[in-house]
C-alpha cells in the first residue's frame, strides 16, 4: 500500500490504464535507437534528461495550475527574470542571487494568483499580461544586456553529476516525485482536482478556492524560477530573451501528458511522459540530422497526431454522444 505509487507500474498507469503518452515515448525511443547509434548511449540519455529538466520543472507546476482549471503563460518570462537575477546579483554573493531569483518567481506567481482570485479574470488573460510585462521588467533590469557568471563554480554546478547521473536530472526527478505525491496524497493535491473539476461545488463544500489557486500559481512561479536558475547554471550566463516560447512548449507537454485544459483532470506521471516525448523528439531528430526546417513541420505534425490518437483512445472509453 505505502509504496504502490513508487513502483513502475503505478507510475505508468493513471487510473488503471497505461497512459498513451508513455506508449508514444517508448515507440519513439525504439525508433530513434534504430536510427542513430548514439541515441541509446548513457551520455545521450542523460543529456536528454538534463535538457528536458528545464521545461520539465515548469511543467510540474503547470500541471497543478492546469488541473486547477487555470493556465500560466508567464512562466517563460519568470524563467528569464530568475535566470538574469541569479547571475546579475552574484556580486552580492551566490546565495543572495539564488534566493532573490527564486523569490522573484514566488512573488510573480503570487501576483498572478491574487489577481485571478480577487478579480475573477480569466487566468489566460492575467498571465498573458504578466508574460509581456515581466519580459519588459527583464529588459529594464538588464538594460538588454546578457549577464555572464564570472564564477565558474556556478556553471560547474550545472554540469555536476552524482555518479553517472547529472545533478540537474536528479533534481528534476526528485521534484517530480514530490509533486506526484503531493498531488495524489495530500489535501492540497486533492482539492486542486476539486477546484478544477467543479469550482462551484468546491466553493459550496467550503474549499477556499482562491487560496488554492494562488498557492498553485506560487508553486508554478517557484518552479519556473528554479528552472531559470538551473538553466543559468547550465549556461553560466543569462540572456534577456531566455525562456521565450517556453510557456507554449510547457503547456503542450502537459496536455500531451493527458492533463485537461479545462481542469479537473491530469497527472504528474503523464506530464513526465509529455516532457520526455518532446525532449526525445528534438534530440532524436538532431541525432538523425533532420534539417531544421523539417523539424518544425515534423514536430507540428507529431503533436497533432498524438492528440488524434489520444482522442481515439478516449472515445472508446466513453459511451456518450460525441459533440
Amino acid at each position, binding site marked *: 500500500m505505502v509504496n504502490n505509487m513508487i513502483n513502475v507500474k503505478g507510475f505508468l498507469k493513471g487510473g488503471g490504464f497505461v497512459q498513451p503518452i508513455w506508449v508514444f515515448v517508448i515507440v519513439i525511443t525504439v525508433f530513434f535507437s534504430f536510427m542513430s547509434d548514439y541515441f541509446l548511449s548513457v551520455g545521450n540519455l542523460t543529456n536528454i534528461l538534463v535538457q528536458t529538466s528545464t521545461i520539465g520543472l515548469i511543467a510540474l507546476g503547470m500541471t497543478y495550475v492546469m488541473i486547477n482549471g487555470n493556465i500560466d503563460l508567464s512562466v517563460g518570462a519568470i524563467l528569464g527574470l530568475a535566470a538574469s537575477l541569479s547571475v546579475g546579483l552574484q556580486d552580492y554573493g551566490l546565495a543572495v542571487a539564488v534566493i532573490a531569483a527564486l523569490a522573484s518567481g514566488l512573488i510573480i506567481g503570487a501576483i498572478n494568483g491574487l489577481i485571478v482570485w480577487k478579480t475573477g479574470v480569466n487566468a489566460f488573460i492575467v498571465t498573458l499580461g504578466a508574460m509581456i510585462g515581466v519580459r519588459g521588467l527583464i529588459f529594464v533590469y538588464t538594460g538588454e544586456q546578457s549577464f555572464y557568471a564570472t564564477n565558474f563554480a556556478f556553471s560547474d554546478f550545472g554540469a555536476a553529476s552524482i555518479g553517472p547521473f547529472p545533478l540537474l536530472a536528479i533534481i528534476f526527478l526528485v521534484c517530480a516525485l514530490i509533486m506526484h505525491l503531493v498531488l495524489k496524497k495530500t489535501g492540497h493535491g486533492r482539492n486542486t482536482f476539486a477546484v478544477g473539476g467543479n469550482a462551484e461545488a468546491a466553493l459550496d463544500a467550503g474549499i477556499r478556492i482562491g487560496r488554492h489557486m494562488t498557492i498553485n500559481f506560487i508553486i508554478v512561479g517557484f518552479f519556473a524560477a528554479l528552472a531559470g536558475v538551473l538553466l543559468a547554471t547550465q549556461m553560466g550566463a543569462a540572456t534577456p530573451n531566455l525562456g521565450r516560447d517556453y510557456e507554449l512548449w510547457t503547456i503542450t507537454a502537459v496536455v500531451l501528458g493527458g492533463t485537461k485544459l479545462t481542469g*479537473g483532470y491530469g497527472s504528474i506521471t503523464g506530464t513526465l511522459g509529455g516532457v520526455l516525448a518532446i525532449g526525445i523528439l528534438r534530440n532524436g531528430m538532431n541525432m538523425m540530422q533532420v534539417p531544421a526546417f523539417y523539424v518544425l513541420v515534423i514536430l507540428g505534425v507529431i503533436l497533432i497526431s498524438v492528440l488524434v490518437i489520444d482522442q481515439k483512445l478516449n472515445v472508446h472509453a466513453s459511451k456518450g454522444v460525441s459533440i
Partner: protein
Amino acid sequence: MNTSATRSHVADHSGAAAPVLSLIDITKKFPGVVALNKVSFDVRPGEVHALLGENGAGKSTLMKVLAGKHQPNGGKIVLEGEEKSFENPKQAKKSGIVLIHQEQSLVPEMSVAENIYLGSLPLKWGNRVDWKKLHADSTEILQRLKCSFTSREMVSHLSIAKKQMVEIARALVFTPKVVVFDEPTASLTDHEKPVLYDIIKTLQEQGVGIVYISHRMDEIFHLSQRITVLRDGEYNGTVNTAETNEDEVTKLMIGRSLELDHASKPHDFKENMLELRHLTVDGVFEDVSFNVRKGEIVGMYGLVGAGRSEVAETIFGLRRPSSGEILLEGRAETIGSSHEAVEKGIALVPEDRKDQGLILGMNCRDNMTLSALGSVSSMGFMKTSAEKVVHDKYQSAMKIKTPSWRQKVGNLSGGNQQKIVIGKWLHTHPKLLILDEPTRGIDVGSKAEIHALIKELARTGYAVLVISSEMPEVLGVSNRIIAMYDGRITAEFDGDAVSEDELVHAITGQVAQAPKVATAITDDATVP
C-alpha cells in the same frame, strides 16, 4: 393574498419544540428581481418542513441564503436561538447546515468518497489524506443509503441517479442540525426514493431539522409535518400537513385549483410519423422497435440508465445506429446529425437543460429562437422584432417568469429554464416532438399546463414521444406506453389499461417474456 390569515404559525398549537432554525424577514434582490421579500420560515428539530412554490417562487434562493451562498439584503438567520450571518458556505456548513443542491454539484473526475467528503477530507500528519478512514467512512454511508456502487468509483462514471445519491450522502457526513433537500428526487426513479425516505426518517429520529423542497405532492404529503408556501418571492402561509390536502396547498401556491384533465387524451391517430425497426446502437441499446403515429402520444418508461435517452438521441441524429432502421412518415431515413433531424421535423427536448438545452450566458430571446433561426431572419439577417414576438408568445403561453427578454437564461429558476427549452422546440413546429423528462423540476401548476399542452399538440397532429421516469406522468399523458429495461424494450402497454404493477415489473426486467397487454407493434399501425 391571504398572508395575514396564515401567518399566525399554524403549527404552534401542536406544542412542538422550539425551532432549531428560524429565517426572519429575509429579503434578497437580484438585478431586476426581488427574489425574496421579507420571507420568514422555521424548522423544528426532527421535523420535515416542506417548502413549496411555483418555479421561480424563491425556494432555492431562500435556501442559498441560509447556506451562505447568497448574502441577503435584509432579515436574519437564527440558529438554535443565536443570530448568525454566513458569509460563505463554509461557515454555514460549520454551523451544521447542509444543503443538498437542486443542480448537482459534484466533481466528476474524483472518487465517490472524495466527493462525499469534499472540503472536509480526513487528514493525518499535516496535509496527508487518510485514505483508509475516508473509504471506510464513505463505505459506511453508502451502505446506509443502500448504494450499489463503491466509494472508489469515479463520479463521472455514475448515472445521474447514482450521482444524486452521492449528493445525498454528503448530508450524512456530520450529524447536521439542519439538512435542506432541494428537489432531491427530480432525478431519482421510484426505485431509489424509498431509500431516501428511510434516510430522512433516520435523520428525523436524530432530531435533525429537515427542509424539503419538491414539486411532487405525493412526496410532500408522505414526508412532511408542515408545509410552507412561497409565492412570487413572498411568504404565503404555513399549514400542518395533516390538516390540509393537495388542493388547498395548490391553491396557496398558484392561487387557484388545478383542473386535471385525465379524460382528454388525444384519440385521433393518423399514419405513422416515426417507426423504429430493430434499431441497435452497440453497447447502448438493442433491437428497439416501436412506432409513433401522428396525433398520438407514446410514453417511454424505465429506470434511469435503461437507455431511453439514447434511443431519443439516435432518432435525433446524435448517435449512429449500428443496425436497424428509422422510418419517418413511412420512408427509411438516415439522420446524420441533429441539424438533419431538425430539418426533417424532429424536435428533442433534452433531459439535461443546463448542458444540453440552453446557452446559459445568452438571454431568453436568443435561446428561444436558436433552433429555428430561419424563421426569424431573412437572407441571413436577424429580424429582431420578429424574435421578440416569438419570445413574448412563448413567455406568455408558458408563463415563463423573467424580468425581460434580456435576462440571461442562467439567472432563471430551474423550472423556468425548462420552460424556455420546451418553448424553443415548440417554435420549430416539429412533426415529431420528443420530450425527455419534460417536467423535471417543474411545479405542479406548470406541469399540468405542460401536460395539457402536450395533449393539445398531439390533437393538432403532432406525433409525441414522452420519456419520463414519473409514473403518473406517463400514465397521465400516454396513449401507449413502452417499457424499457437495460437497453431493450420489455413491453408495450395500452396507456389507459395498464396497471402500475405491470409497469413496475416491466421496467425492472421482471416481465414475462411476452408483453401482456400490448397493442401489437404492427408495421402499419393506423388502428385507433
